[in-house]
């Protein structure tokens, strides 16, 4: 029999915490886009109508501006940004093209159910240069989607409508169950938006894209109810190490 003097104690397992799965995915996508050459910029979550809507060619009559879609604060003097696009506007006003920006963060809309929340996260990117075409946009989107979901993933582009891009598209991926799932919106920057930012739309064109982080996180982690991300339940959070 060996002596207990020679016995080493069981290894002490130090419990590590975890990054929130939404922030983990956001950081992964931002890192990917930075590796492509995009520069990270940041902007406020409380915005003006001018930056959130007007500069993006979202007309006064657009449904998104209604009180039932947008949170307004302090007697309508400001609003909670409904997308991260105003950050791109601020970026374009500060820097001359060629430019390639990304921004990520919280956005707010008046929704609340199993697939929508009043607060969620987006990443948006914009690239302005000479002779940027829809064919370039497709190349970039393929690279992003293949990096996120693997080279074998099947994707399709569908025409869509966003006031700040023209042409506009939504991109779907084919799930393992054979269903098309929408994962991002994109398009060529509407020349009106470029002109709003004092960029000559005859000399420059651009592309833009935006991803909803929660939607992709639900797909990648198999989470069925978006609200699970925000219950702060340690049984949930401890799975994402």
């Amino acid at each position, binding site marked *: 029999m060996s002596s207990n003097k020679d016995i080493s104690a069981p290894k002490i397992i130090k419990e590590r915490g975890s990054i929130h799965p939404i922030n983990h995915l956001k950081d992964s996508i931002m890192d990917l886009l930075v590796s492509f050459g995009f520069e990270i910029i940041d902007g406020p979550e409380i915005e003006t109508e001018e930056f959130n809507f007007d500069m993006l060619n979202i007309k006064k009559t657009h449904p998104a501006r209604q009180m039932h879609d947008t*949170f307004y604060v302090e007697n309508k003097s400001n609003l909670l940004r409904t997308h991260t696009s105003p950050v791109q506007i601020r970026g374009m006003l500060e820097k001359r093209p060629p430019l390639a920006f990304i921004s990520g963060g919280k956005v707010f809309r008046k929704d609340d159910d199993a697939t929508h929340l009043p607060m969620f996260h987006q990443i948006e990117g914009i690239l302005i240069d000479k002779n940027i075409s829809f064919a370039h946009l*497709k190349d970039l989107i393929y690279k992003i989607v293949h990096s996120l979901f693997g080279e074998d993933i099947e994707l399709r582009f569908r025409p869509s409508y966003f006031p700040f891009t023209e042409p506009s598209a939504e991109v779907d991926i084919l799930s393992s169950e054979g269903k098309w799932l929408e994962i991002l919106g994109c398009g060529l920057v509407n020349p009106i938006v470029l002109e709003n930012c004092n960029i000559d739309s005859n000399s420059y064109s651009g592309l833009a894209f935006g991803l909803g982080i929660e939607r992709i996180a639900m797909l990648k982690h198999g989470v069925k109810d978006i609200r699970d991300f925000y219950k702060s339940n*340690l049984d949930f959070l401890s799975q994402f190490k």
Partner: protein
Amino acid sequence: MKIAYKHLVKNIIANPSIDEISDRLFQLGHEHEIENDIFNMEFTPNRGDCLSINGLLRDLSVFYNVNTNQEIYNHKLNKLDIDFENLSQDICPQISFLKIEIESIPNKYKDYLNDYFKDLNLNKNNFFTDISNYVSYENGQPTHCYDADKINGKLVFQELDTEQEFETLLEKKINLIGRNNVFLSNDKVINLAGVVGGKETSCSSDTKTVLVECAFFKPEAIIGKSVKYDIQSEASYKFERFVDPECQEKTIRRFIKIVEEHTNIKDMSLITYNYKKNKVTKIPVKTNVINQIIGTNISQDEYLTYLSKLGFVVNDENIEVPSYRSDIETQNDLAEEIARVIGYDNIARNEITIPKGKISNIYDMENKLRFFLLDHGFYEVINSPFVGINTSNSICVDNPLDSNKKYLRSNLTQSLLENLLFNERRQKDSIKLFEISDIYNIKDNKINVSRKLAVIASGRAGHNYKDFSKKISKKYLDALFKESLPNEDFEFKVLSRESLNTKVKNEIISCEVDIANFSTDVLSYSEISKSPESFIEYSPISDLPYSIRDLSFSIKDFKELDTFIEYILEFKHKLLKEIYIFDYFNNEKNAEIKIGFRFIFQSADSTITEAQVNDIISVIIDHIEEIDGITIPGLT
């Protein structure tokens, strides 16, 4: 919007299958689902022109020969003598009225009208309203039918501030407030324009004389009204998205034709008011610009042919946009038309070169702090900014989703405290959380932003046998954090449990610090934790209570020690959630080692029972009892 395959395909010469049409619709950007041969369409808000059979056929005409020319009444009509005044011509620049009297109400409908109701599973209403609904389905233009005998006096259209009760034709009573576009008769609202008509003047199954109103309303005047009054209205859905400003008389004539096909008309007359001519949009032909935008190389002939098929009038210099396409104004809009026709998926990729931006470090500090906290067992949370508690400088949300949460939080600690109590209620005995977020408040009458890190902790220092009996305290956290980041002041404090509805007595320690207050020393911290390299498949969590069992073993024969520990820690059962060593004591003097294991049980579908736990524990005990030199003190 629901559109039957059968109704579409009967107007397409090539008779394509439903799957083929579905593929074409997706290519054109018309998202939909198919159920029982019905397309449930979801159109983008710029394509109001597609909200009908004819609208979809016009788009599909780029692929097929289609028929959009349904028969209309072509004869001359008498001028209607009507006392009508339009006081808001900017909102309603075109309007037609048709008065029509029939001999008798038909007993049955022609097949095409019957099929419309049957195929789409719609309820019939009355003869004139049924035709109105069918015509709107066929060409996208809503009409409103008044029982002509119920209208007395002058009819007025006006945008006005009004406060009065209005009963819709669906017998819903609403209180009109603020600015509304209405039709008035004797100063009383009889129709909420573009949304829903009133009960008082609506048609019934006895109506034989109808006044049909067919108008163009500016979308901006209609938007928001159906939501404001909580009315589901197909008419407002169409007017909000723009109807063809040049189709009103044609619609009226189609209406007459259908009436005529069902019964004898005794009398009819029409009047059309065109207050403002619709502006024609012309865009110069620039094929090179279109190719540049899309990244293609199509010829001018091909380009103009596509546009002609879509209803554009083209010549070598200009492209004239049809009146129903209000969404087309620029070269980029035309490029999108061509890209849709070619198919986005058929446009070849062109390798992109991205201008290199500067490598940004705006998140370096908070990322270092994140990983520092991970290393010490803290979990990151993200909380909603909406709270019910306000301080003197809180920002108020004008239109909150929940009136009990109408402020933006002015600190992170309160949210973290709620997270901590939530986890305590779920029997968690070691809770360490943090959040990094912007906080907003009013300062000097301006919106002020600061980026904060907040930390909260309570309960056991950890679950390993060294930390199990240590409780988290201010002293413990101060020492732990100073060890790695000696120059940073986290300003930990003890939160009172006095006002909290909890029986747990553990101290709650928290801090909330401006990220800007940390020194650059933080950037030198070498983290141990890493981000997960792959995405973990999540296992659904149970909200049912745990059951905990502790087993202590005395080991006097050490040769089987490692095997014994491995057996227990690797023991698997679907009800066994977690096992860890919470106690370890090596008594060299007595040549004895004591090890305590904690077993945590939880079921996914029902509260776990004593019997279930005992069954699992007895499997473990039976196995251990076979090993020489290992006993469970107290177990006989």
